[in-house]
């Protein structure tokens, strides 16, 4: 078991998401930065579909009530065990009563705690990913108990660590493809899309990132159609919304671009005020 002492600002349980229920209006959800989450699971030999703890900023404190192995990947929030700093991207043995804490953000916006065997909270429609209205909880709260499996005789594999590319956290360029309504844009709009350095507004969360900056927009509204994580919508006001993992399954704004999978992961590590630029691959 892991006990939540301080839940932080927005901490949730996520796995690969709830795929196959779009028919009944259920969003994918799932880890925001699939790249970092997969890395965390991989380093301790978990399955890619094992659930992990996703932390988006805030002072988080967790206490382990069982010995196990963990790995933290993604943002650097100064992780410590019993007040002693620990490495990211490396398997770490934790003992009963150990306290894992996160404080000062150094880089990135989301970090992942993978635990040997995965977090064993309830599966709803095939996934443990929190999503309001589908799972009982949307975020972790103080005193929550997270079930984990017994790994009493765990031994840490030496050298089980990897070096990560800092570009994943610092690069402004997001690889995108033309969205279904891209061709409706004027030459000027298309040029703006490629050349403007956009910044991320404070309105950013697991559902979507709204961008600062307005472009001319005279596109007609469209009949509601499917949207995907990574879809860039152009709203009537001329502002952009990039949909993220918790986005609804259908929407009515023109879908002008589609982020690559890696671009979604990179964006998940960005926060208010960070700059981005679209790199269009046709």
């Amino acid at each position: 078991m892991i006990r939540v002492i301080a839940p932080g600002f927005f901490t949730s349980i996520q796995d690969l998401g709830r795929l196959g229920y779009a028919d009944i209006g259920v969003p994918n959800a799932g880890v925001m930065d699939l790249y970092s989450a997969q890395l965390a699971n991989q380093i301790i030999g978990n399955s890619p579909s094992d659930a992990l703890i996703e932390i988006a900023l805030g002072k988080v404190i967790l206490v382990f009530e069982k010995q196990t192995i963990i790995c933290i990947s993604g943002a650097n929030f100064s992780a410590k065990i019993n007040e002693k700093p620990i490495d990211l991207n490396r398997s770490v043995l934790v003992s009963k009563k150990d306290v894992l804490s996160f404080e000062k953000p150094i880089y990135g916006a989301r970090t992942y705690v993978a635990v040997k065997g995965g977090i064993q909270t309830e599966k709803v429609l095939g996934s443990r990913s929190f999503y309001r209205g589908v799972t009982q909880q949307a975020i972790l709260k103080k005193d929550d108990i997270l079930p984990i499996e017994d790994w009493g005789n765990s031994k840490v594999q030496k050298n089980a660590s990897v070096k990560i590319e800092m570009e994943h956290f610092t690069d402004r360029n997001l690889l995108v493809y033309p969205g279904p309504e891209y061709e409706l844009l004027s030459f000027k709009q298309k040029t703006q899309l490629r050349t403007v350095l956009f910044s991320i507004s404070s309105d950013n969360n697991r559902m979507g990132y709204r961008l600062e900056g307005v472009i001319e927009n005279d596109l007609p509204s469209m009949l509601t159609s499917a949207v995907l994580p990574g879809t860039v919508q152009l709203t009537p006001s001329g502002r952009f919304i990039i949909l993220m993992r918790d986005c609804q399954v259908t929407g009515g704004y023109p879908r002008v671009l589609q982020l690559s999978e890696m671009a979604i992961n990179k964006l998940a590590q960005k926060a208010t005020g960070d700059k981005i630029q679209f790199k269009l691959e046709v």
Partner: protein
Amino acid sequence: MGVFRLTYKSYGKSAILIEWPSRIDKKICEDVISFKNKILKNSAKQIIQVINTYSSLTIIYHSTINIIYDDILDLKSLYEQEVDEEITKKYRWEIPVCYDAQFGIDLEELGDENELTKSEIIELHSSTIYTVYFIGFLPGFLYLGGLDQKLHIPRKSNPRLRVEKGSVAIGGAQTGIYPSISAGGWYVIGNSPISFFNVKAKEPCFAKASDEIQFKSIGLSAYNNVQSEVEKGKYKLKKSEI
């Protein structure tokens, strides 16, 4: 044989979007669903999901599409093929709605705007048989077609931050029921005590695209009765096969 002229587009690196003429039309909706079923049964590639809306299908594949042209050719020929369609049963669901002023908080405004009395609104809203076009927006939110023109009204310019669960509302040419608390810009005219999304049920949402919905006006006391039966898990929705 395919009936409509469809367009095929890539949508990112692992999805294909198929579009019908862009309008709300029962024939198009039926064709969308029938093609969706064909794809789910006959696709050579592994599919994560197929999302159907008024006039489009989005197919999301497990793997990246490398040669989109080939996949589109396969889909085109599948659309033209005669395939024995499995006949899935369709139902008409009777949904109790209480239009009492305590729930129908926008009845008056809608009545003023569209020059209708309250009972005319209720009569118009509950005498229509609606078609479920698809489910989206929120888990269990049914997009219903067929709203009487006299009830059409543009969405509110200032959406409410909180619309209660079960709210029955009108926005534009559409009507629907909020399956959970949500923000919303539609005119709320009543409330249904029915649960439209229940993760514990075998079918979390009882209705599916191409089913039908009919609203039945009920009074406050009937509303309370239904609500308590729903809470106890004893309420059985009335349905008939169509």
